[in-house]
């Protein structure tokens, strides 16, 4: 049965710049009091561009379809370069279905299908179809009617904690700047001017003891973070995960409803993450690495958003019993501490020295230099604390089926548990000092859609070699 794309795909195929071209064009037509002749002769180039974009989007929609067999899905797309992809159902790792409020009103569902191959940035297959047609793409949902299924839904306050931890100021600031810029391009430049004036006025009012520019930057970053936090909360509300037979099914979202169906055999590894703050409160989040889940912008590959560490471990055993974590048997020895804390200590000392030198050269800028140096020193001091904690918690362990790696990546602590069969490569590296001291760094690469590497530092060489030899038979 051949299924064609929903007509709403025409709008999807049109770039954002199209609207920036269209609205001023229409505004011109209104200003000319619908004098079509004058309008066409004056703006024929813009009209041609707009028409070409629209025709291209319609042709693109017409060329998109899929046909479902018992064991294959045949995907067809393209206008001039017609592509036919034959994807076996068994190769599918994740099926993602997304429905916004607008899509719901039009009876449309966005579907993405992922395999372990293809691009790590783009979906293997993406199509918007009618809701009835989307229900035919239920290869990984067939076992949902199975009685023996287990579910987990986190409490709402843990979702708030998760959104607090995972909100990124940068994404919020980018959204805000794009929104103001694009709205200004359509409505007029007054909006942009108003926003800048408001920030300037506010920063002058709040600049008590700190330069106004620093306050302005803080306002922008804080606003960005608040927007990102709100988006994250709305994204993850009503989060629920169900394990049935061999598949995991995740539902989330308030306004935009999302469903993720994951083939648990295709899971590359699980990642239990903590920051220093959440570690202090024994809170953790569990992420899953599986092709397709967590690929899109602002999408996080989360299995358990945030809860107590004990509950994360229990939920992990319930939802993914085939991947069991092992205790760390190989850990950095006491003398390995220097390797962990030396780089951040040196950076902290350098910041202080550079600030003192600059104050000596530019005494009138004392306040700004001190402020900038303090702002740079705070994250470095925090990093030093993180690295010290990493020294205590890092290590590797293995059991019959899996290997568990505990390490720190920037400011985040990860406990990676992966089946031994998913190890692509293991590498031991040694600096000359480590060679003398009998220590090493171990790098483990995982076999998935893209290569991921995990590095544990300052481990004793002999025990690390034993673990690598044990894992070799499964690779």
């Amino acid at each position, binding site marked *: 049965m051949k299924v064609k794309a929903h007509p709403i795909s025409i709008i999807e195929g049109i770039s954002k710049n199209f609207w920036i071209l269209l609205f001023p064009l229409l505004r011109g037509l209104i200003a000319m009091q619908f004098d079509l002749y004058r309008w066409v002769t004056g703006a024929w180039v813009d009209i041609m561009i707009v028409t070409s974009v629209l025709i291209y989007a319609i042709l693109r929609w017409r060329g998109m379809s899929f046909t479902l067999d018992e064991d294959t899905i045949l995907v067809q797309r393209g206008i001039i*370069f*017609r*592509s036919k992809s034959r*994807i*076996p159902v068994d190769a599918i790792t994740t099926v993602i279905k997304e429905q916004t409020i607008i899509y719901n009103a039009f009876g449309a569902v966005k579907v993405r299908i992922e*395999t*372990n*191959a293809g691009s790590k940035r783009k979906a*293997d297959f993406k199509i918007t179809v009618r809701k009835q047609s989307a229900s035919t793409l239920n290869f990984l949902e067939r076992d949902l009617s199975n009685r023996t299924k287990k579910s987990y839904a986190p409490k709402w306050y843990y979702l708030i904690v998760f959104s607090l931890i995972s909100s990124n100021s940068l994404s919020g600031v980018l959204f805000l700047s794009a929104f103001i810029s694009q709205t200004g391009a359509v409505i007029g430049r007054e909006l942009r001017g108003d926003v800048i004036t408001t920030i300037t006025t506010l920063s002058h009012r709040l600049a008590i003891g700190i330069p106004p520019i620093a306050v302005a930057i803080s306002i922008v970053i804080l606003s960005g973070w608040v927007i990102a936090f709100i988006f994250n909360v709305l994204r993850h509300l009503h989060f629920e995960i169900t394990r049935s037979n061999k598949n995991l099914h995740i539902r989330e979202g308030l306004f935009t409803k999302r469903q993720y169906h994951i083939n648990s055999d295709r899971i590359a590894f699980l990642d239990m993450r903590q920051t220093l703050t959440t570690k202090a409160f024994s809170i953790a989040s569990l992420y899953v690495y599986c092709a397709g889940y967590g690929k899109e912008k602002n999408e996080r590959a989360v299995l358990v958003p945030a809860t107590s560490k004990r509950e994360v471990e229990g939920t992990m055993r319930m939802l993914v019993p085939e991947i069991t974590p092992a205790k760390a048997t190989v850990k950095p020895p006491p003398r390995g501490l220097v390797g962990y804390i030396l780089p951040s200590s040196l950076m902290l000392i350098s910041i202080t020295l550079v600030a003192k030198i600059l104050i000596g050269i530019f005494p009138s800028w004392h306040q700004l230099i001190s402020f900038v140096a303090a702002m740079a020193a705070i994250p470095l001091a925090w990093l030093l604390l993180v690295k010290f904690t990493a020294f205590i918690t890092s290590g590797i362990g293995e059991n019959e089926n899996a290997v568990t790696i505990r390490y720190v990546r920037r400011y985040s602590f990860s406990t990676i548990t992966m089946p031994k069969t998913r190890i692509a490569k293991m590498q031991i590296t040694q600096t000359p000092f480590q060679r003398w001291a009998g220590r090493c760094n171990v790098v483990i690469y995982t076999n998935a859609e893209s290569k991921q590497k995990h590095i544990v530092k300052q481990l004793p060489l002999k025990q690390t070699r034993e673990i690598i030899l044990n894992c070799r038979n499964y690779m």
Partner: protein
Amino acid sequence: MRKYHPARKALYTLQILELVLCAALGIVAWYYLKFFPALAWIAVMLIAIMYILTAIIYLPLYIKKTIITIAENEIIVRTGVFIETKSIMRHDAVQYISIVRTPLSKYTSLNNIVVNALGGRLFLLFLSRENAEEIVDILQERGIKT
């Protein structure tokens, strides 16, 4: 073991397309530089040289040197004009295949196959329609898990 080469028809198609493109570029260059005849001539000569180097020298060598081998357990692609590369992909690493056709591909032989596997892709370019369909059938039988 079966060996395939890119089709000669694809070479002729690409040469004609490139001729059209270079001619268009030459006309545009001449039109905008007509008040500087020396510059106009230089631009046209450069475009002509670029055409000769790519369409007359590079493309025929590329077509001649490219060999696609479908072996018992793997796909081997040997290609390259100045730097030869040999890519080997095991059948059991293949996840799915895409075949990309252009209009009138039966006559132009611009049929391309993209083999998607764990961590990488292999491109089998400029095949005749018959060869492309044959390769897809063989790969489906051997490489793709069903």
